[in-house]
């Protein structure tokens, strides 16, 4: 185990930072709250940077990199609240790659943008595959699937699907009558597919309610393990994004605490502020350690990946909640104004903690895995 960035990874991170710096992503995050079309399309930039094929094998036109590399890219996007549809595309690409699907080259070049329509695998108190409900805590059943040869027909709704709007291909999980999950690649424009775009509090996060009414797609020949892996990969990506956002909250707050004076002293010299800032750092470092764990586990110990990804999301989600509020606190009244950046990170935190099962579900899975003896605690 080598738990440090390789030279290539440092380069990947620098390149990502460079690409993103060409856009005023944070300013746009504010504007888009009132004018959703103010968001620039960052997919061409992602294509240029080679991100769509990051997790696709080299022989199929991808970069053949690992989850940890993807998390570094997610982190850079999160740092500047960039709206790049990787949370939809990367887990979808991982399923397509495992299936050796015919679309892989087009997906790898970014020509065809896929979106993952997630289903939560068993692994906590629920024995079956479930999806996000439109409202409330009661989980919804995953879409029902009927398989005929290479074709799958899906029926059902999945709420709050990241990056579904504008995607060309949906990679969805359905459940057959016997409870077994099955994956389908469905054209977004196919009959029986409807995608209702929704925006909730954080304009940089594109979401959609996806409804299948007898929609037909190609069956993807992958096992339940690959579909579970995609779910945890999405969790790890949310963790990566959150880590980047926390880093910005910390940097901005530290800089302000050095410059702002009260009672004749820089506010950063007061223990209350100083300890709040070190608490951001502590949580950030914990999340980073688990980001390494998730990256390492997916590559080298896949049976631990569910635990690692859940722990990373739990820690990073908690860190972002804390950091966004701390950023507002440290900045005093000005931190709660529309023109300040702090509320944008707060909006990111408020929505992220409630997506894809929420931070809470990830924490619960850490407990379940440990209690059932998976993972090496």
């Amino acid at each position, binding site marked *: 185990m080598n738990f440090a960035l390789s030279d290539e990874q440092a380069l990947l991170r620098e390149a990502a930072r460079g690409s993103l710096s060409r856009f005023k992503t944070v300013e746009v995050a504010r504007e888009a*709250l*009132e004018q959703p079309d103010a968001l620039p399309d960052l997919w061409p930039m992602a294509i240029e940077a080679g991100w769509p094929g990051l997790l696709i094998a080299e022989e199929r036109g991808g970069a053949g990199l690992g989850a940890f590399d993807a998390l570094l890219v997610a982190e850079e996007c999160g740092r500047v609240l960039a709206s790049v549809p990787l949370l939809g595309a990367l887990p979808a690409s991982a399923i397509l790659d495992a299936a050796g699907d015919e679309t892989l080259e087009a997906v790898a070049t970014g020509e065809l943008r896929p979106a993952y329509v997630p289903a939560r695998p068993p692994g906590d108190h629920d024995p079956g595959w479930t999806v*996000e*409900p*439109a*409202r*409330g*805590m*009661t989980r919804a059943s995953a879409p029902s699937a009927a398989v005929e040869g290479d074709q799958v027909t899906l029926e059902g709704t999945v709420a*709050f699907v990241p990056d579904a709007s504008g995607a060309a291909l949906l990679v969805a999980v359905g459940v057959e009558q016997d409870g077994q999950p099955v994956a389908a690649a469905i054209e977004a424009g196919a009959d029986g597919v409807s995608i209702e775009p*929704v925006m*909730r*509090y954080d304009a940089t996060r594109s*979401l959609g309610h996806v409804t299948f009414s007898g929609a037909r797609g190609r069956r993807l020949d992958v096992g339940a393990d690959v579909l579970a892996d995609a779910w945890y990969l999405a969790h790890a990506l949310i963790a990566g994004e959150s880590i980047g956002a926390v880093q910005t909250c910390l940097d901005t707050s530290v800089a302000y605490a*050095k*410059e702002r*004076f*009260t*009672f*004749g*002293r*820089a506010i950063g010299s*007061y223990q*209350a*502020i100083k300890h709040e800032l070190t608490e951001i750092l502590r949580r950030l470092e914990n999340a980073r350690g688990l980001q390494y764990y998730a990256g390492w586990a997916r590559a080298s110990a896949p049976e631990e990946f569910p635990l690692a990804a859940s722990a990373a999301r739990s820690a990073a989600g908690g860190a972002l909640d804390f950091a966004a*509020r701390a950023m*507002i*606190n440290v900045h*005093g*009244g*000005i*931190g*709660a*104004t*529309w*023109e300040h950046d702090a*509320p944008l990170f*707060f*909006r990111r935190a*408020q*929505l992220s*903690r*409630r*997506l894809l099962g*929420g931070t*809470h579900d990830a924490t619960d899975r850490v407990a379940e895995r440990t209690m059932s003896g998976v993972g090496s605690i």
Partner: protein
Amino acid sequence: TVNQEISRAQVPGILDVIGIGMLGPCLIAHGSAEQKGRYLGPMLHGDEVWCQLFSEPGAGSDLAAVQTRARQSDDEGWTLNGQKVWTTNAQFAAYGLLLARTDSDVPKHKGLTMFIVPMDADGVTVRGLRQISGEAEFNEVFFDDVRLEPDAVVGGVGNGWGTALTVLMYERLTIGFGSEGFGSPTRLAETLAADETARADADVRHRMGELITDLLAVRFNGYRALTALAQGQIPGPEAGLAKVTMVNAAIAASDLGADVVGPDALEPDSDWSYLISFLPGLKSAGGTESILRNTIGERVLGLPPEPRLDKGVPFSELRAIEKQAVAR
């Protein structure tokens, strides 16, 4: 009640809270007989709304650092220049109670004076300040050569700090005991009643029980404070602890409500969205939690103060010292 009538009339429900709850008691304590006679009646009847003009961009927690200047003219009136922020109701207000610096050559707490400012005077400009929700819950107020009569002074020239402290004490009492979590317990009970899974979830129940316990404590400590007031005691700084409890419990309530509902709780017209956006700013209203805890630790528990680097330094020299420190 007055509150209910006001809220039925679609006027912000906090209108009378600032005037009657905070500024009125200060006028009663420090105002002249003429001031009490002129202002208290219309304030109580809701005919004249008041606003509090204390905070500035460079003076929030450290309120004594206000830079808005009032200079005495030859006719013994005053000329006001400067800027205030975080002013609730400035756009509706007939009068404001304003803390200004009248002497820069003495240490900062000593050169302050409290004034009554007619908000329709020439040179007063009110500009909305948008908060997290996008709504302008607060204002910036600019003063450009505003003329004040000699009788605008409240509590005597140079006594502004003591006068301001009275307002702050009542402010803490008001925010702490006056608002009980902004209706969040009722909303939360409704939200949970509508969700069987949530209602049976031990973690949801535990979070609910903790925050309701806190809000009940604020309510019954409010009754204790009222009993003390009725017995002629003045609210002490410990009333600020009620504010800390109330704001944090309301944050916990809105977080929990939104966790149960999911992302739809973040829609602009949801029950929860406004609270979620509003509460972070409220945490700073009436002094940050950290300053409150300092004050209570020192004045209630008798703990020694922090070393102060600004003590005894003339206000005019302070900014220079700070700039130097940043440059180092």
